[in-house]
């Protein structure tokens, strides 16, 4: 929508309300920012225990390497990989076409859609019992799941009063069509923890939310409404 028409359709309430400065980040802008962050820093979305977990991405720098899961009798532990696609955020109200039950996009919340690819290095211990194959064989097994989540935003302050960052917390996710329900619940909890941790690495400075306009100290927010993340403050 052209700027003039958009401005003309604004309701009679001011943008700044009772504060001096307003910064509203539309969901398309938020997704552009997330895309920029995760494109520049892909290691925030790609985790693996070793280079035996194949890409893409091919570059080792695009991965965060962590220890394998130690387990008695498994030499070197269980190799694993977790990869998320860049999440797509939708600020309240819902404009994503609906959420799978039981998720409900409450006031002040956002929903997100992403995929998670789980990789397991599936191995055998046959090297111990098969002299003809002394090396333990491992094969990466992958499962890619689409998931939907809901979450909320926070403000984290540091330094000068009113200065800080906006963070995103994932409250719940839903993966459909996994049976039995207990497995679905288990996976959802595991993936929610991982996704929350991954998205938690994104910290958007207040000035990024305003595209650098009007240096301000945050007084109110972040608030999520009308498809925007809104910050309110006073001029520094």
């Amino acid at each position, binding site marked *: 929508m052209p700027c003039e028409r958009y401005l003309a359709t604004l309701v009679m309430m001011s*943008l700044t309300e009772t504060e001096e400065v307003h910064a509203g980040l539309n969901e398309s802008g938020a997704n552009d920012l997330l895309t920029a962050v995760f494109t*520049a820093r892909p290691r925030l979305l790609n985790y693996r225990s070793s280079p035996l977990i194949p890409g893409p991405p091919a570059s080792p720098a695009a991965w965060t390497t962590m220890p394998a899961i130690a387990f008695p009798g498994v030499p070197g532990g269980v190799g694993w990989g977790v990869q998320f696609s860049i999440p797509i955020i939708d600020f309240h109200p819902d404009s994503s076409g609906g959420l799978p039950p039981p998720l409900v996009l409450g006031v002040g919340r956002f929903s997100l859609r992403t995929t998670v690819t789980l990789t397991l290095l599936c191995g055998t211990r046959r090297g111990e019992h098969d002299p003809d194959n002394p090396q333990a064989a491992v094969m990466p097994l992958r499962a890619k799941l689409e998931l939907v989540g809901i979450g909320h935003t926070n403000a984290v302050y540091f330094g000068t009063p009113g200065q800080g960052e906006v963070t995103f917390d994932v409250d719940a996710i839903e993966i459909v069509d996994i049976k039995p329900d207990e497995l679905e619940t288990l996976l959802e909890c595991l993936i929610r923890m991982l996704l929350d941790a991954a998205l938690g690495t994104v910290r958007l400075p207040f000035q990024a939310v305003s*595209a650098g306009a009007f240096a301000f100290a945050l007084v109110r927010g972040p608030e999520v409404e009308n498809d925007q993340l809104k910050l309110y403050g006073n001029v520094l």
Partner: protein
Amino acid sequence: MPDVIAAIDEGGANDLVQDAEAALGTLSDSGSGSLGPFTASWSASATFSGGSADLIAPNTIRLADVRMDYTVSFTFSFDLSSIIPDFCLPQVCVNVPFIGRVCTPRICIDWPTVTIPVSHSSFVKFTADFNPSVTLVGGVWKVDLVIAGVPSLQLGPAAAAIIVAIGAAAALVLLPIPFIGPVLAIAVAAITAAIGVAGVLGLLGPILSPFVTGLRFTVYEQPQVFEILPAAPPDAAVNVTLTAITAAVVSTDEDELVLNVDFSP
């Protein structure tokens, strides 16, 4: 809907303008111009401060009582003979007994050309309308408040003060000149009368007006490649490209300066 809507109300706009005035710093210029019948070379500097913002939809930011502090220094030269007639002391001869005729030499006074320096500092307040102007030049987005029209500067009191300053400066310069004593007051009066308030205004106006007519306060300045997050090894900096910016004054239950920003990752 734009990616970012940033708005500031009139109270915030006041602070914004003060910051922009401070960021503008000291403007300076030099040149030469007419000072009454004389030609003066001048240098001038000006700073801006204060003023209260009134946001008027759709496109006006009225700044009332903006204060321009300025310093004007100028020098002008003139031939003193042009206002005080040259004169000669005639030869005087006397007959001295036993010596004969003795004569004094004829002495002519040719008044020199003098240079008078004057410096004056003061301030003037004005009210003017500004329009937001968005530019992308050299990879930098700017939103400037650009003055619309030429406000009237009330320079009369300053001109009167400068006339006094010219008289004082002229007296200092003329005092050491031989034989000037009896006509010093006449010379000073002649100089200030020749220039007059109109002459000072004729110089002062063209010096100070350009500072105001070209006035623009920058209220937004960001590189087109806008850094969201700085580099933090091993991670690179995160940037987005600011693709479009518009600015307007929007009136609802209060008046606000609104910037709309679009960007791409």
